[in-house]
Structures are given as C-alpha cells and as structure tokens.
C-alpha cells in the first residue's frame, strides 16, 4: 500500500453534487499520509466553507478506503492550503464541461471582477455570454446566459 495506490482508489469517490467529478480531480484531497503502524490520514480542504457536501465527502473517503481493506483511516480537514478553483485538474475541467457545467476559468494572481463575470458556454463554446446571477443551485455554481445559442447555463464559479 502506497500513496499512489490510495489516490487511484480515491478516483472512485465523486463529488456528491457533481457525480462526474472525482475528489482528486476537484482538488480537495491535498495529501495522503501513511504512518509506520499503517494508519492512513487523508488531508482534505473544503471547497466552500458552508458546503454541506463536505461531510459526505469525508464519509465516502473513509468508506472507500475501508472497502479496500484499510482498517485504520481518518480524514483531516484543514485550511492550511486553502482550496481554489485553480486546483481543479484538466481532467476535472473536461468532466465538468461534458456534464454541461462551464469549468472555472484558470486565473493568475487576484481574482477580479472580469474573471467572475466571464464564462465560456459549455454547449456552443461561445464567449459571448453574460453573468445572470452569481448564485445557483449549489454554493459552487453561478448562472450565465449564452447570447449565441440562447441558453441559460451554469458555471462552476471561480474562487
């Protein structure tokens, strides 16, 4: 048993609100520690501080690893390395787009207003879109409108 194997197993644990996205690709699994006695600690960081899915994610991580025969497993939530949407992997971005959710635009430095308002339509790839409301069906989604294909769509909002 090593870290790489455990991370492969954790690929099976999905975000309960976006069932195509694994927690590894979401970027909330920050590290896996294995001590001498074989105890596994999965270090995680929350996406949004009020996200109700975080409890389920921790439970799913523990259950998945137990199913692989790891008896002594725990999760540890920490803000040491705060999550931002740049931590979503390329594979994760692709999965979001296929799910019909615009992936969060990658950004450098400070997240300014232009980035919050920008979204590429996941259906027709147009950039001619506008932000309708920064709040959606879950804390991590905003709502946008595509002026080209005239559809309302959701974005995984950048933070």
């Amino acid at each position, binding site marked *: 048993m090593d870290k790489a194997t455990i991370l492969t197993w954790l690929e099976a644990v999905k975000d309960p609100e976006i069932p195509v996205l694994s927690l590894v690709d979401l970027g909330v699994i920050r590290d896996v520690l294995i001590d001498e006695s074989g105890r596994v600690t999965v270090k995680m960081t929350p996406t949004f*501080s009020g996200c109700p899915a975080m409890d389920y994610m921790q439970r799913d991580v523990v259950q998945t690893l137990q199913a692989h025969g790891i008896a002594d497993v725990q999760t540890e939530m*920490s803000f040491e390395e705060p*999550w931002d949407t740049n931590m979503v992997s390329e594979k994760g971005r692709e999965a979001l787009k296929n799910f019909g959710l615009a992936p969060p635009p990658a950004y450098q430095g400070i997240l300014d207003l232009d980035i919050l308002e920008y979204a590429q339509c996941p259906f027709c790839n147009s950039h001619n879109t506008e932000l309708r409301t920064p709040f*959606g069906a879950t804390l991590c989604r905003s709502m946008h409108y595509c002026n080209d294909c005239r559809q309302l769509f959701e974005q995984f909002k950048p933070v």
Partner: protein
Amino acid sequence: MNTDALKDLLYRLADDQLILGHRNSEWNGLGPILEEDIAFSSMAQDKLGHSLQLYTLLHQLGEAEPDTVAFTRNAPQFHCAQLVELPIGEYDFSLIRHFLYDHAEILRFEALSHSSYEPLAQVARKLKGELKYHTLHANTWIKQLGSSTEEAIERLQNSLNYTLPFALGLFEKTAAEDQIISEGIFVGEDEIKARWQENITKILSQTALDIPDLAALTPVFGGRIGEHTEYLQPLLDEMAEVFRVDPTAEW
C-alpha cells in the same frame, strides 16, 4: 497572545455571520424574484458556514462546541451588532443592509488574512474569496435599482438613511481593541471603517442616491457588549427550537 482579546474578536465576527445568515435564510421562498430567493439563501448558507469556522476556532481555544455556543446562549451573551438582528423588512431594507454589511465584512477578512494569529488568518483567506460574490451581488443591485424608477430610488434612499446609523454600529470598539491591534491580530475598527466608507461611496456615487454625512450620524452601539434590540431573542428562540427540544437530533 492575549486569548481573551482574541476570543472577544472571534465572538463578534462569528455572531454577526450567524445572525445575519439566519436573517438571510428568511428570504427563502419569499424573494421578489427566483434569483434573489436563491441569492439570499446561498448567502445565508455561506454565512452559516463562516460562523461555523469561527466557532470552531473558539472551540480550539477552549470554548464549548460550535452547536452549543450557537444554540444555547441568550441575547445578552451575543456580541453581534444590532444591524444584523433587525427583521428582514422589505427587500429594499434587506438589500441595503446586505450592501453595507458585506462591504465591511470583506474588508475585515482581507485584513484578517494577515493576522498574527495564523489559524484565523487561514480561515480569513478562505472566506474573503467567497465574500467577493456577496459584494458583487450587492453592488449589481444597488447600481441597477439605485438608478431606476422613482419608487425604487425613494425606497432605497429611505432604507439607506434608516440603516446607516446601525451600520456604523458595526465598528463599535470593545475594551479589547488596543490589545487586538498591538498584538497584530487585527488592524482595528477605525481602519476598516475608513476603507468601508471609501468603498461604499464609490458604488453609491454611481447611483441617484444621496450619501448622508456619516460624521453627523450617531452610531447605534451596544451590540458588542450584549445590548440588543427586542428582535434578537425571538430570532434565537426560533433558531434554537429544535436543538433545545433534542440536542442530539439529526436531520
């Protein structure tokens, strides 16, 4: 580090977020349009999450469990500003309160992200990113409605005039103020208030709304030392109803 001063600050921050979070949740199902219903409910969820993180910091400093702290105190033990406990009223009041409050809040957490108390700095770095969406939301509506119909402008102006003295109460100092500043935990209320005034002025000056002379207003103080309006205790009774019946209830 002076733990009492730090706890005093944490209680103020956490109680503001919890109580305004609860008030925001009262828009659930009542918003003037669906998007606003969702927006206020989402901000409620964010704020409850923020209060949980702050009560967790207090718990790490020896205070009771977050749920116990949130649900078993009565009004005189709360350190929130009176602004956040006022009933939601009409949408114009809730929008103005949201605008004035969140502009102060984002500045607080930006400043706290440099706090000498590292656990608080870590939480603040997280929260300030989420709060960007709250100020973006408030600014959008204030700019749109504040330059629209005569009725909208008049309603917002009346709410602004009524709410500003309460909003100034957010910057009430406690006996811990000097210590908090000298230990580098927080820049202090005067600093935040000056930046806040600058930021809200920037937005309001893009509308038809008049900005009253803040120096001429008397801030509504008292909340930070447990003096509250008649509206807080009924809110607490409702919020804690289930917990008081069965503290172990899960749903």
